[in-house]
Structures are given as C-alpha cells and as structure tokens.
C-alpha cells in the first residue's frame, strides 16, 4: 500500500519561505498590510471564478485543502493528512479538527463535497475535477474522493485558489453560485482573513479571523488590498512605502527600477504554478504556416535572446517549450531554435518558396492582443524580412477583437500568453489536444494542432501519479512539439513580487501572491 501521510506536527515547522529561516527576526503579531492588486475582481469567490484578481483576495477569504511550498511540495492546510489508495482511484482526506467558517459554523466533509461539486460544475477549468465520480463523507472530518482514473492534477487542484472550501449552508441555498449575492459581500469564508469591505475600483479590506484553524496565525490584523490599475502608480506607491506588497508585477522597466531601491525586495520566486508562458502561435491549418518548414524557418529567424535583452530587459529567461521552465515537467533539452538566418532561408528555399524580385517570398500577418505585446510584433516585421517574409502587423482595437480573430482561427501568427495553472493537465493540455479545437473559445487549441501521439501522451501522463512516468511522457510530448512547432515558445512572463523590506515572509510559493498570507508579518 502506497501512502502519502503528513502529520500536522511538521506543519508548524514548515515556514513558507526559506528566506525567513535565515532572517533573525521573529514573526510579530499585529499590523495592517497595505498591498496592491491590479484589477477589480468580478467577485471574491474563486470556487466559481478563475483569474488571479479573484485569487489574491479569494485565497485569504477561503482555505483550500492543501497548500504548496516553493518546492512544489503539498503541505497540510484544511486537510491534516491525506492518503492515496494503491490503485490511485481513491483519495482519503482527513480534515483538521475544529476548523470553522467565518460565521462560526464548523467546516465539515459535507462542505468539502459541496465545494468540489460546485467547482466541478461551475469553474472554467473543467479538467481539474473531471475524473471525480463521487465524494463520500463517512464522518464529519473524513472525505473520500472517488476517481474514474488516476488523476495527477488532483493535488494541485486542491490548493490555492483552485479549490476554495465554501460553506454549504450559505452557497448551497439553491441560487446560482456564479451569481450568488454573497460572492461579493457578507462573504462567509474559511480562510485566515474575513471580509470587511469590498469597494469596486477602490479597495478590499480584510480583517484577521480570530478563530482561524491554524494556531497563532494569521500574524497580520488587517490587509488592505488597494486596486491600482496603473503600473507606474504602483511603482511610485511601492517606492514611497505607501504600498508594502504587490504581486504579479511584470513590467521589466518598473522591476529594474525597483530593484535599485533599498527599501524594496524584488523577487521572481514563485509563480511557477501560475506558469505564464509567452509564445508565437501559428495557424497550423490555413495559409503558409500550415507548412512545418515555414514554422521552423520563422523560429530560426526570430532571435529569442534579442527579445529577452532588448524588450524584456533581462527580467525573464527563455522558455523552450510550452511548459513553464519552473515546472518539474519542463524539458530544456529540446531544439532551442537559436537564431540561424542561413538555416531559415535554406528551409524556405527547400520548401519551394522562392524569393521574388523584391526579395520577398510571401506575406504573413502578425496579431497581438495587448499593448505590451506590440514591441514583439513590431520586431517581427524587419526581422522576418531578412528571410523574405513580408510581415503586416495587425493591431486589434481591444482584447475582445483580438480574441475573436484568434479563436475563430483568422490569423497566421499571433503573440499569445497562456497560463499553465499548476499541473499540465489543467493548463497545458488545452493548447495541444485535438479534442480542444473549439472555434470561438480563446486559449483553446487555437493553433488547430492535432497529432495522435501527442493526444495519447497527454492521456497517459494525465492518468498516472507516477512522477517519473509522467516526466517521461511529457519529455516525449515536448520533443514532438518542438519538432512540429505549432507554436514557438519565447519566455515566461516575468512575474515578480515586490515587497517592502519591512514585510516578513513575503509570499513566494508556486502560486505567488495567490496564496494565503497568514504567515506574512510586519517587522
């Protein structure tokens, strides 16, 4: 019998950050943390809403079963311990004793079953709990999850904002959970902080929940999440000390500027589970990009290192595949397509695309959907001219316009940014699965790529908990994709957490700031 057991005792010793272990200061109780989030969340209930705007306040309001440390290790949270059966089809969760919701009612296995059902039915990430056939509740602190097949994504899907434990007696009242009035006000949560005030476009104020189930936590009395959309405004407020913490910062110039500031800690630790990867996606079915030789030639003609230096200003690193480099499944041994203009020209010549009198072989359009992607699109125009591809940069008026074009497959090449969301099953498979070619759905397989072996590898890697086997499957998967190149990976978004040096234990889990801040304290 294979058992994964973790005692609650180890929890007390496990600190969120390695840095805090080195720091001499002891965590201190009390204080108000003023931090920034970048957009107003639609509402605060992550059980029925994806996105980190909801996730950052949502993970304070609602506890999940597990939490992940910076080393991708699951740690006990609401689940005191858990056990996976030999056949990997049954997962038994033992809940911590005495945990209560913010209204004082106990958190029971009933609520866990209800939460899983709600997420399964309403959350956009369908693959998270798709194999769950039933959740049994033999007693108040035991939940048994039954699976139709082994489901390796389950552990990550039970952490952070992906499985918020919500009270059945509040959200199970028959109303549509997506439009429940208590998603935005009078939120009854299970996490370390409870909601005081949510003012759209202004702030979210959270207060310490005194009966939180983790002993002695949270350290902070209050968290004020100010909603600051403008990156420059956040930078200035962080520099002046008005803001103490901000996650998901990705503007290289702002990051480099704040790195020079003594009062700020700038860290790119974490975010591997968010896993945001930027790439150039190709239309693999229509036009010239349907020819793999053309896609490869473009990959050889694009200088990824130049983009990293000139546009990302060294704030991030290369991603050679569509899996985030911070993921344990990332395979960095694939063909990197380092710049080689001769090879690119050779590939195009061999494929029969002769240069015309003007030195051009054929035209292609490049799309981009948001302002920060424009420099990359503009870069492609002169760069691909060097191999005789005449690029027209097509700007879209707004994000929906771009999303409509790309999701309806009306593009040749587009810059895109897709999140891995922890396990590849949740955020990676959707990009390559031939089952997921869905017209009109953005971030489905908009490349319209289809390969039977790739489908098979994803199915196998998604149906076993054996990490070594999975690594092997995903390695082959990445090798095939690097060879057929439905998309040319560029780099992960340079997500950084900026914190004032006064902030102890800044969050740097694999989920970034979309993670309970119960161990954060003010020095």
């Amino acid at each position, binding site marked *: 019998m294979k058992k994964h057991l973790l005692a609650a005792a180890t929890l007390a010793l496990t600190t969120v950050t390695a840095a805090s272990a080195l720091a001499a200061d002891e965590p201190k109780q009390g204080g108000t943390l003023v931090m920034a989030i970048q957009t107003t969340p639609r509402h605060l209930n992550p059980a029925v809403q994806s996105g980190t705007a909801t996730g950052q306040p949502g993970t304070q309001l609602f506890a999940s079963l597990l939490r992940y440390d910076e080393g991708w290790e699951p740690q006990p949270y609401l689940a005191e311990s858990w056990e996976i059966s030999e056949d990997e089809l049954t997962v038994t969760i033992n809940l911590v004793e005495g945990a209560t919701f913010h209204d004082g009612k106990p958190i029971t296995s009933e609520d866990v079953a209800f939460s899983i059902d709600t997420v399964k039915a309403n959350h956009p990430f369908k693959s998270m709990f798709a194999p769950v056939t039933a959740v049994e509740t033999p007693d108040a602190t035991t939940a048994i999850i039954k699976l139709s097949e082994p489901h390796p994504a389950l552990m990550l899907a039970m952490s952070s904002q992906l499985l918020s434990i919500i009270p059945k007696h509040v959200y199970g009242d028959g109303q549509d959970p997506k439009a429940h009035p208590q998603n935005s006000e009078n939120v009854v949560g299970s996490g370390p902080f409870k909601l005081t005030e949510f003012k759209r476009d202004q702030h979210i104020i959270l207060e310490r929940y005194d009966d939180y189930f983790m002993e002695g936590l949270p350290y902070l009395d209050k968290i004020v999440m100010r909603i600051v959309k403008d990156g420059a405004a956040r930078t200035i407020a962080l520099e002046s000390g008005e803001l103490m913490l901000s996650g998901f910062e990705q503007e290289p*110039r702002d990051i480099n*500027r704040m790195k020079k500031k003594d009062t700020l800690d700038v860290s790119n630790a974490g975010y591997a589970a968010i896993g945001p990867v930027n790439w150039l996606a190709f239309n693999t079915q229509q036009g010239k990009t349907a020819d793999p030789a053309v896609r490869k030639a473009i990959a050889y003609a694009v200088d990824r290192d130049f983009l990293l230096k*000139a*546009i990302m200003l060294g704030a991030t690193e290369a991603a050679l595949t569509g899996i985030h480099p911070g993921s344990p499944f990332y395979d960095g041994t694939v063909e990197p397509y380092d710049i080689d203009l001769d090879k690119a020209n050779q590939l195009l010549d061999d494929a029969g695309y002769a240069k015309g009198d003007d030195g051009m072989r054929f035209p292609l359009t490049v799309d981009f959907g948001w*302002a*920060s992607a*424009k*420099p990359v*699109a*503009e*870069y492609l*125009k*002169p*760069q691909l*001219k060097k191999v005789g591809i005449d690029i*027209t*940069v*097509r*700007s*879209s*008026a*707004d994000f929906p316009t771009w999303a409509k074009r790309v999701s309806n497959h009306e593009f040749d090449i587009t810059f895109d940014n897709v999140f891995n969301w922890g396990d590849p099953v949740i955020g990676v498979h959707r990009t390559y699965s031939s089952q997921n070619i869905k017209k009109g759905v953005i971030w489905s397989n908009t490349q319209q790529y289809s390969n039977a072996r790739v489908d098979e590898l994803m199915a196998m890697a998604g149906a076993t908990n054996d990490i070594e086997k999975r690594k092997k499957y995903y390695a082959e998967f990445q090798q095939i994709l690097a060879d057929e190149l439905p998309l040319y990976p560029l780099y992960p978004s340079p997500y950084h957490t900026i914190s004032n040096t006064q902030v102890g234990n800044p969050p740097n889990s694999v989920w970034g700031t979309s993670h309970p801040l119960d161990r954060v304290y003010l020095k």
Partner: protein
Amino acid sequence: MSEPFNNTTANDVAEAQIKVSHPLAEMASMFFRNYAAVAGLILLIVIILFVFVGPYFHPVDPFEMVWAPFSRPMEEGFVLGTDYLGRDMLAAMMVGGQVSMAIGLAAALISLFIGVTVGAFAGYYGGVVEEILMRFTEFFQVLPTLLFSMVIVALFGASLLTVTLAIGVVSWTAVARVTRSEFLRIRELEYVAAARSGSASDWYLIFKVILPNALPPIIVQANLMVGSAILFEAALSFLGLSDPNVMSWGQVIGSNRPYILDSGFTVAIPGFAIFLTVLAISLIGDGLNDALNPKLRQR
C-alpha cells in the same frame, strides 16, 4: 521739353502704384511684413526639404534593425541614435515625417470638404436646411474629438486610411461654422443680388460667386487644421491607435513611449519635430490671417 517728360514720369509712377496694389501682391507684402510668419515659412520649407529630400542622402529603411537598441544620438555613428529595436531614428524621422505631413494634409482636405459643403449650404439656403445642418454640426461639435476618433479607429481597425478619415471626420465643424457665417454675410451683398437678378442658378451662386469671396478665412482655418491633424495623429499613435506598418512621427513616439524614462530621446526627437512643424504652420496661419482678413488688417 522737360515738362512733358516729367508729366509722363508722374503718370508712370501713378500707374506703377496701381500695379503694386494688385490683391495678390498686396497679400504677399502683408504676409512678409509679419516676420514671425516668414520665420514659420522658412522653418516649414526646411522641414519639408529634410523630410522629402533627406531620404535621398540617407537611404535607410526605417524599419530595419541596424544597430543595438537605444544607441544615443551622435555616439555610435547614428545622428539621432537608434530606437528600442535598434532602428535608425534619423531614417524614421525622415520617412515618418512624410507620412505625418501627408496625414495632416489629407485629413485637413477631408475636413475642408465636409466643412465647406455643410457650411455653404447652411449659409446659403438658411431656414430649415440651415437648422438641420447646423444641429448636425453641433452634434459633432459636442463630441469629444479625440475620443470620437479613437472610437472610429477602434471600430474599423488601425490603418493609415482609417486614421486619416477619423481625423478628418472629427475636425470639420469649425470650417463649417466659418463658412456658414461668411455665406450669411456675403449672400446679402449687392454683387450677389446682382448675380441673382441675372437669374444665376443656386449652384453658380454658391460655388462661383459666394465661395471664392468667402475663401480667405477658410484658408486660414484649413492651414491651422493641417497642424492640428498632425497633432491628432500623434495623439492617436501615443495611445497605440496607429498603423504599426507605417512609420510616422506619432508612431515613433507611440512605440518608444514605454521606454521614456530610460531613453527619453527616442520620444523627445519626434515630439520636437511635431512641435516645430505645428509651430511653423501656426505662424504661417497667423501671417495668412494678416494677409487675407481685411478687417484685421486695418487694426
């Protein structure tokens, strides 16, 4: 013997004086009396030479990445440095200037066409026609122009054509009002009444009789519009609503804007070029106003 000659000379002088006061010559002299306007004209000529003749002496593709990004002006062999992709700023300024000026001119012509048509008919016919046309004009006048042009570009996509049309479509109202007020004044004058009594058609009266006499203030207005259209294009580009496949001064500003704190020159140079051009056009407009507006002239 000498007297008759002297008389002839006096007559000649009188005749010569009449020749000097030919309307165009008089206009020119009024214009050149305004030194600021002359300076503006010289400045504009220099800019036009730079933009249209410059590329023959500096034939570099402004899209080509020729050097490392953000090489500062004069430091590494690039007179105006390189932009964020390492493209030659000097070439971008030359080729971009052509586009900026072309957009300015084309947009001004579009708004001139719409404005003069609307204003002429409103002023000539009066009554219901005037009511409808002027309410229509006011409708466009109260719309925030930049916002309106952004909507147009957003709806129809950012191409050179839509940007030009958007600018033209939002900035014709002033022309329409000026044209209308001139028409209201001129249609009551005696020479119009005379032409009308000669059973001239409405069409003839509008375009052959009244419009030529209403032109001076319209020309001044149109001139200023070229300047504001260039500014408009820059504003749209700054907001990212420009055709990324065409180099213009606004496009240079728009694409280098994120790097303004690190390498301000890439934004400052095209900004300065726009400033100089618009200034030159405004000064010329001032001089034209002096030359063409008889009422102001007497002050």
